Each structure stands twice: as structure tokens, then as C-alpha cells.
């Protein structure tokens, strides 16, 4: 019976993956792209076809694991690789969650609920069809919390170690999750206190007792410290190693966080925030303590999850941790909008709790009716939250999803790329992929490009006539013009320093200008 259910589950997963793939490819053909997938496409092109030392590109492009996840599919179709990765990855997330579910209950209702959410929830469709790396974040976020909650019942090193490994991967999918460790500090102390063999039941009194007995104090400190270490040493050490590699190969510990050559997020987040805050109707609803309330509205299932665990203090504190984490992100990264990913983690967390507890509730009919209503409500809130998102990519996605018509989001980049593609085969074009990665993503010969990762770039930018035939610069109107050396100020400056240089403007769009080196 179980084997048959397992087989059905595989078939359903394959169906869901196919559904995501079809939808993702369709949206992609309609012209939907986002900065992250374009960035990964460009880096994949450099890795596959580029010239020069590609080590830095391979090792320091971040988030590194989602990049590799997309790169795996680059040989199939480089422009669709991120979409394929996200579609398969989200289907895998479904499979992992559904497997956990069917191991616990034979009631197919919950599986149907899960299928409905994965097929219809706009946030999950965004995860699956956008080509973004949210799928990987959600997989390892789920596995991290799954193992933490399993640890409470099994009390084996296995689950805590797996949780730690999942946290490492999570951090390498989205560095911001390193801050999650902060909010586990009080939780681990609480777990240690609870695990002491004391007659007293109340946590405060247990704490008081254990701090006032030298033997218990030593035991408490040792155990708390040991759990911290086993949970956090891997993520912290991995980050340290990665920073060391950044230092040895890019002379900057935080290269992977701060350099636009390493990550798309630096400029994309800044641009998104600048654009949004310049609107007259902008309201700072996200920059407030209301994030928790927004999450409760977005995902009321989390309230049900807390209700299911009402008698398990560990689990409730564990569920509360991501709330503190998201609130912290709002304060720490006050110039970045909270991406939909950080709402989706609550959807996943609540599903995890439902998987663990819902089937064992005494009033199954009531639970099923309640969950059905909540799921329908969440489909709606999922749509609303994306529609009203401050991040353009999210709004665009839901718009094209519900109103499928060709979009010209990348038309200008495509236009420039088409021009570059039409240049003679032996023409060398210099450009700065810090901002021009969307253009490179659409070009068809990376070997003709002179990019900053190459040793010749510096010389080419100082004496272009000896190295390149064309230069792509950002125009004054380009919102990212200040983030590249090859901008509207470059041409007068280089002409001033090199009198013999003769540049001719050969192509121009609103944001880009191509010069021919004569």
C-alpha cells in the first residue's frame, strides 16, 4: 500500500514538475525575466564559453548553490536553465513535503491540500516558474525546521547535525539566513534547561535552580554550549571559509556580498528600493512592526500551526523564531524590501506543522473544514501580496500570470544584444557586466566580449584601441550608470587622456550606447 502511494507520489511530482516547466517556459516566452535569472544566465555563459580566468566567476558568484543549481541545466538551454531549475526544484520541494506527509498519515485529504497549494498558490508558482532561487531556500528551510522539530522528539545527534548541514546550505542559498542563528540562541538555552533532570516544571524556576547549583550550572552551560556548537559551527565556519576564499581571490572578505560582479542583489535591491521610494504614492507599510501582522494575514495557516503545538513550548518557540528573524531583517536591511521569499517561508513552516500534527487532531472534520477555508483564503492573499508587492519583479510575475500577454520588460536589453550579435565575428566588445549582465545574457558569443573578470579588461579600458572594437556604455538615463566605469563620463575621460582615440557612436537606446573604436 505504502509502495503504491509512493509510486503515485512520484507520478504526481512528475506531473507538477511538468506543469511548472510548461508554465515557466510559457511565461519566459512571453518575455518574463528577472534580475537573478539574467545574472545566472550571464555567469553561466561566461563559465561555458568565456575566455580567461573563470575561477572567480565559478567560485565567488553568489548565492553560490542556486547558481550551480541553474548551471546544471545550462547545457540544455541556457536562457531557460534557471526556470528549469526552479521548476524541478519546486517539484522536489513538493515531493519532500508530501513524502513526510504520507509517512505520517494515510488520509489523502492533506495530500490534496498540499497539491492544491503547490498548483495554485501564486507565491509557489512564482517560486517554480520565475527562475529565481527561492525553491532552494524553501527546500532547505523546510529541511532545517523539519530536523529541528524531529530533534525535539528523537533527541539524536543525527537530526541536530542534519539541521546544521541544512542551515549551511540555506546560508549559501541566501546569506541573510545567517541571522537566523541569532534567534536560536535563547531557544537553545531553553532546550537545555528543559532537558535537565529537575523536579521543578516552571522554566523560570528551573533556570533559577540550575544557576544556583554549581553542578547543574556546569551541566547547563556545557550542554547549551555543545548544542550551539553542533548547530552553528558548520554554518559559521563555512561562511568563514568562504570569506577566506573571497579574501585570497578577490582581496575582499565581503566580495560575495558587496560586489555587483559576484551577486545580482547588490544593484537590483538598491535599484528596486530607489525606484519605489521615488513614487509619490509610496507608503512605508513594510518598514514597521506590522510585518508579523502581515505574515499572519498572508499565511493564517501559521496561526493554526501554533494552535496545533500549543502544548509544546519548544515547537512554538521554534515557529516564533522566523518571525523574529524577519522583523530583524526589516530593521537590518531597511533599504531593501522584504522579498516574497520571506513570506513564503511561513507558508512552508505552517505546512510542516500541519504535516506533523493536523492528522492527529481529535476533531478531524473541523480541522479539514478550517484548513480548506484557510487554503482558499491563502490563495487569495498570495495573489494580493504579490500584486501589491513593492518589488517590480513580483508584481510583473503575477500580472503576466493572470494576464498572459507578451511583455517588453527586456526589450531594450534584447535590442542591444541583437545589435551586438549582428557585429562581425572577429569584433571584440568591451562591456561591464556589473550592470550589463542582462545584455550579455542575450548575446550569443561570449568569446567576443571583454569583461572585468578578464585580465585584459583593465588595459582595454585604458587603451581600448589596442584591445577592442566596440564599447558598450551606460547612458546618462540608465539608473545604474553610477555603478559602472563604462558610463557617459567614460568616453570624454578616455578621449581626454588618449588623444589618439577616435570613438564613433554606432547604436543607442535609452539606457545604452555602443561606440565603435576607430
Amino acid at each position, binding site marked *: 500500500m505504502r509502495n503504491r502511494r509512493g509510486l503515485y507520489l512520484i507520478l504526481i511530482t512528475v506531473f507538477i514538475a511538468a506543469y511548472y516547466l510548461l508554465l515557466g517556459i510559457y511565461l519566459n516566452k512571453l518575455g518574463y525575466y528577472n534580475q537573478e535569472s539574467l545574472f545566472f544566465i550571464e555567469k553561466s555563459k561566461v563559465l561555458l564559453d568565456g575566455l580567461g580566468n573563470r575561477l572567480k566567476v565559478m567560485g565567488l558568484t553568489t548565492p553560490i548553490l542556486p547558481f550551480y543549481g541553474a548551471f546544471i541545466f545550462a547545457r540544455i538551454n541556457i536562457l531557460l536553465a534557471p526556470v528549469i531549475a526552479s521548476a524541478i526544484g519546486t517539484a522536489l520541494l513538493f515531493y519532500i513535503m508530501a513524502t513526510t506527509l504520507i509517512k505520517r498519515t494515510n488520509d489523502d485529504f492533506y495530500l490534496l491540500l498540499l497539491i492544491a497549494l503547490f498548483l495554485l498558490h501564486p507565491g509557489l508558482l512564482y517560486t517554480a516558474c520565475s527562475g529565481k532561487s527561492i525553491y532552494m531556500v524553501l527546500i532547505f528551510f523546510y529541511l532545517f525546521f523539519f530536523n529541528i522539530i524531529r530533534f525535539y522528539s528523537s533527541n539524536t545527534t543525527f537530526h541536530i547535525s542534519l539541521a546544521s548541514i541544512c542551515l549551511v546550505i540555506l546560508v549559501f542559498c541566501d546569506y541573510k539566513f545567517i541571522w537566523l542563528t541569532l534567534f536560536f540562541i535563547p531557544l537553545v538555552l531553553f532546550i537545555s534547561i528543559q532537558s535537565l533532570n529537575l523536579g521543578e516544571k516552571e522554566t523560570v524556576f528551573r533556570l533559577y535552580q540550575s544557576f544556583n547549583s554549581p553542578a547543574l550550572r556546569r551541566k547547563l552551560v556545557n550542554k547549551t554550549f*555543545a548544542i550551539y556548537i553542533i548547530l552553528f*559551527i558548520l554554518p559559521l565556519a563555512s561562511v568563514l571559509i568562504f570569506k577566506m576564499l573571497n579574501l585570497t581571490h578577490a582581496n575582499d572578505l565581503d566580495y560575495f556580498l558587496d560586489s555587483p560582479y559576484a551577486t545580482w542583489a547588490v544593484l537590483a535591491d538598491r535599484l528596486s528600493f530607489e525606484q519605489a521610494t521615488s513614487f509619490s504614492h509610496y507608503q512605508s507599510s513594510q518598514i514597521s512592526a506590522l510585518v508579523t501582522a502581515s505574515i499572519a494575514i498572508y499565511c493564517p495557516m501559521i496561526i493554526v500551526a501554533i494552535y496545533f503545538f500549543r502544548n509544546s513550548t519548544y515547537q512554538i518557540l521554534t515557529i516564533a523564531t522566523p518571525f523574529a528573524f524577519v522583523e530583524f531583517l526589516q530593521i537590518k536591511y531597511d533599504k531593501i524590501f522584504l522579498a516574497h521569499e520571506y513570506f513564503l517561508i511561513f507558508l512552508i513552516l505552517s505546512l510542516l506543522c500541519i504535516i506533523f500534527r493536523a492528522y492527529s487532531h481529535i476533531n478531524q472534520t473541523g480541522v479539514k473544514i478550517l484548513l480548506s477555508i484557510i487554503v482558499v483564503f491563502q490563495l487569495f492573499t498570495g495573489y494580493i501580496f504579490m500584486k501589491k508587492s513593492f518589488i517590480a519583479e513580483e508584481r510583473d510575475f503575477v500580472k503576466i500570470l493572470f494576464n498572459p500577454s507578451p511583455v517588453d520588460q527586456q526589450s531594450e536589453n534584447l535590442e542591444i544584444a541583437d545589435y551586438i550579435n549582428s557585429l562581425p565575428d572577429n569584433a571584440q566588445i568591451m562591456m561591464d557586466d556589473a550592470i550589463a549582465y542582462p545584455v550579455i545574457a542575450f548575446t550569443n558569443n561570449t568569446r567576443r566580449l571583454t569583461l572585468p573578470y578578464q585580465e585584459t579588461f583593465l588595459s582595454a579600458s585604458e587603451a581600448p584601441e589596442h584591445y577592442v572594437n566596440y564599447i558598450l556604455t551606460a547612458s546618462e538615463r540608465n539608473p545604474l550608470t553610477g555603478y559602472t566605469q563604462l558610463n557617459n563620463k567614460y568616453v570624454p575621460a578616455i578621449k581626454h587622456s588618449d588623444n589618439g582615440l577616435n570613438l564613433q557612436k554606432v547604436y543607442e537606446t535609452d539606457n545604452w550606447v555602443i561606440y565603435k573604436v576607430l
Partner: protein
Amino acid sequence: MNISIPELLVNDGFITPGDRERIEKFSARSDLSFIKVALNFGYISRKNYERSIINAGYKINPVREEAFDGEVLNKVELSFADAHLALPLRIRKNKVVTLMADPTDRLFIDYIRMTYNLEPEIIVADDLDITWLTHKLLGNDYVKSAVFELLNHDPDSSALITFSTPQMVFFFLILGLLAAGLVLNFKSVTIILNVAMSFFFLIAIVFKLFLSLVGSRFELHQAVSKEEVRNVVEDELPVYTILLPVYKEAKLIKKLIWNLQSLDYPREKLDVKLLIEEDDDQTLNAVRDLDFPAIFEVIIVPYHMPQTKPKACNYGLHFARGKYLTIYDAEDIPDTDQLKKAVTLFNKLPENFICVQSALNYFNRNENFLTRMFTLEYSYWFDYMLPGLDTLDIPIPLGGTSNHFKMENLLELGAWDPFNVTEDADLGVRAYAKGYKVALVNSTTYEEANNEPFNWIRQRSRWIKGYMQTYLVHMRNPVALWKKIGWKGFLGFNFFVGATPVTFLVYPILLFIFLGYVVFNLASIKTLFPDWVLFICIFNLMVGNILMIYVNMMAVFKRRFYELILFAIANPIYWLMHSAAAYMGLYQLIVKPYYWEKTTHGLSKINSATNVIN
């Protein structure tokens, strides 16, 4: 003198009439003489026995230099002489000069009369001297069998030949190719070598992490529950042989007796053999000087090369009476219920499980840095790695002691290889190759962690050398091994037994490159290793170290040794000691492969409490 020794002992108050009755019954059941039972099963101490017979007018003679006649000796069986603590030596004045610990042993006296048709001339001697002389004079065939049995019956499994001809050809071919490659294109070959080493190092460590994770999943699993141990019917328990190979361990004899007495197993069903080498008077005298009853039987192992623990154990096997058998070191403190747990587990398991391995750990873990590191290492090894291997059905390299065997299967396997210095690991693989399985039992034996660095390196060099030997023996025919143990077993064996010494050998080289590059910024290294190679190497080395540290950290959880967790960070230093030991082991593998690097025990100043399990 008409009074018999049993009567004398009762009259002197050294044993009670009840004891006498029990000894006589046991003697009749076991074919052991009265005095053998009395002295070896905890009824009377040797000191008291000596007092008793001296008071009765006997004189105890020094006999180790006594002359002997081969013709006379040829007519007596070693086991019979040993069971009666008596030995006919020669004919003098128409009498058979006979050494006897109990001059009133009628059965042996009658045996002399019937065998030689002469009256015996009895020389009363210390039982240990008689045992020493008996084994020295009659044990030649047995010791030869102990050394050559495996070689004669299964030469492919013997480590007598360290490198087989095809292995030599293979190694020299590889060396030749390497040398040629370095001459032709030094840079490229160095890069390939470096990347290969680096990846090998990482894969081996990731494999260990994987095993530990698999093992940690079952850390709360109880193979035998307390309830099952409580339900054991003592009358139904079989005879259990315990082999205690010792060499120059005089300091530990008293401790050993204390630990053995704490075992929760019927005394008369224990068959404890203290295996003392012929030239080890130190230990023999320590046994002689005991002023309380011993509960073991001394077996003297006649001198024969190689002088190794497996040879001693093989010799001891000839005299073992148990259905099951285990080995302990002199300083071991097993959980008191370990034997009962092993019997219970054997009864629960299918027939093809022929060995049960207990966990090993250390009682002196907090003594110094080395003992802490050793404890961490053993904890992860026995609590996580071996259960991991067990779960994945990969051959388990048995631990040095506390492995419990079914006697008949052990004999069928050819017992231990006396030429292999990690005979336990070798036996584990050999058993697996023959289709047998090894199980793990939730019982621990506490040992003394080596607390002295040079002693530690010597011990470890033997272990690593043994792993190399074991690897070479079983990889003489890789295809055959693959067929015998399957792909999982084959890969596991390669990664676990083969890769372990190699990672230790590779580690300092990688560390040197890392330091040369990052700390000293050596230009020559930069030239030889382009950026991408160094990137991979540094990544692998750092990740490898972190993972190994992490695996060690996991180890503290099962046994709640939380205070040791930070010491895991010192693992890279501890690994350097492993590397030193690995190079020493490699050197010895080439120049003296069977040399048994002796570990000195009894250095710990920590008092070991018996590990009573309620």
C-alpha cells in the same frame, strides 16, 4: 603424608567444606583437577595455598631449570598436564620425576604409573612454574599451529607476505609512470597529483561524515534492553572464554582481577585465560605474588616469532572451553553485564552473525589533552562510525578488544592472523568476506587512554601499519574481493581501511601547501600551483578539517561528554600526530612488517571505577 590437599585446605580453613564440594563437582564436570579449579576460580590465593602445603611439610622447589627427557615428555598431553598442574620430566633411579602442584592428585599419580609402569618421584612445585615449564616443553606444536594455521589453510588471507608480486609490479609501475611524468611535464603532473590528493582527502572525510550521520540516527537504539538482561536464566548460560593477552603488564594484574570479579556472569561458567609470554617473568611474578584468589587461568605462550598479540590469542584458543569467546586487555573495564548482553544478542540474531562488538571508551578522558582527543576519537568511532558501517552493511574493522565471537566460527575462519598487527580489523573483513556478519551491542568497555605522546604515536603507528597490511592482504585480488563483499562493502573497505592511512599521509603535504601559500606566501608554490588548483586545495583542506572537527564534535553527544566539545577544534593538531604515526607505520611496513609496537599501559593516574550496570 596421608591427608589429601582438599582435606588439608578445609582443615586449614582456607576453603569451606561447601567450597570443597563445589570444587569437586566442577572438577568432575570439567576434567580439571581439584587444585586447578581451586587456584583458578577464585577459591584460594596462591599465597595461602603455599602456606598450607609448607605447613603440611612439603617443600616448594624451583623447577624451571630441571632437566627433562623428550621420551618421557612425548607420552603426556599438554592439555592433560595443564589441567592437573603436573608434569613428568624424566626417569631417575627407576622413578618418574614428576612435578606436581598437588602431590596428592591420585588421578595423575595413577596416570604416571600406568603410562610409564614406574612409580613417580614427586617434586612439589609452584603451579605457575609447572605451567610455565609445561607450555615451554609441550607447547611447541600448539605454538606452531598458532603461527602457521591460517597461512597453511588460507595463505591468501595471511599477512606473512606484505606485498604480493602483482602489487609490487603495480606500485613500481605507478612510481615509474609518475617519475616519467614529472620528468616530461613537471608542472602538469604536479597539478594533477595535487588535485587528486586534495579530492581524495575531501571524499574520504565526506564519507566519514556520512557514516557518522547514518550511525547517529540509531544512537538511542538498544540492541539488548535491560529487561532482556534481567530475564537471562543463569543456569542456561554457556561457558564463556575470556582471553587476556598481556605482556609486561605487572602493574595491572590487581586491577585486572578486580575488573574480572565485577563481571556479572556465573564464575564457573567463565573460562578466563591470562596469556603470558614465556619471557615475561615480570607479569608471571605479579600473578604469583597476588595475596587474594585469582579467577583466571595462566597460559604461558612459548617463544616463537612473531611475538604478537594474535599469536598469543591463537595459542590460547587451543585451551579455550567456551561456546563464546572475547578478548580484553589487562586494563579494560567492561560493563558488568557485557557478557550477558552478548549472549542475549547472539541468541536473538540470525546464525550468520558470528561476532558482537562492544563500544570502547576511556575512563581517564579528562587526564590531559591527549586523553581528551583520544576519547573524542573513540566516541565517534564506536558510537557513530561503526553503527554507520553496520547500518550500511559494510565490513566492520573490529576493535582491539571486547569483540565477542562464536568459538566454532572463529576456528573455522582460521582465527587471528599472527602476522597482522591489527588482526582484529583483518578478522572483521575476513568474516565479512566469508558471508558472516558482525553486530554491535550497546555495552561499553572502558580502557586506559594513552596519555603520553610518544607512547601514543607508537601505538597509533601499529594501528595504521595494521590497516595498511589489512588493505594489502585483502586487495591482492580486488575483483575477488568485490565479488565476495559486494560493491558497497568493497567501496566501504577502500574508503575506511584503505583511505584512512592515505589521508593521514596526505594531510601534512596539503597543510604545507596551505601554509606555504597563505602564511609564507612562497613564490615557488605559486608558480607550481595556479590559482584554480590552490582554490580547490584550500577549499578542500579547510572544508575537510571543518568536517572532521564537526564529526568529532558530534561524538560528545551520545555519552554527554559536553565538556570535550571544544577540544574537537584541536583536531588538525591531533591529525598531525596521526600523520607522524602514519609515516612511522609506513616505514615499519617496509622494514619490519610484523613488529608489534608495544603500548605501555598503566601510565594513567586516574583511578578507574568499575562500570556497574544495574
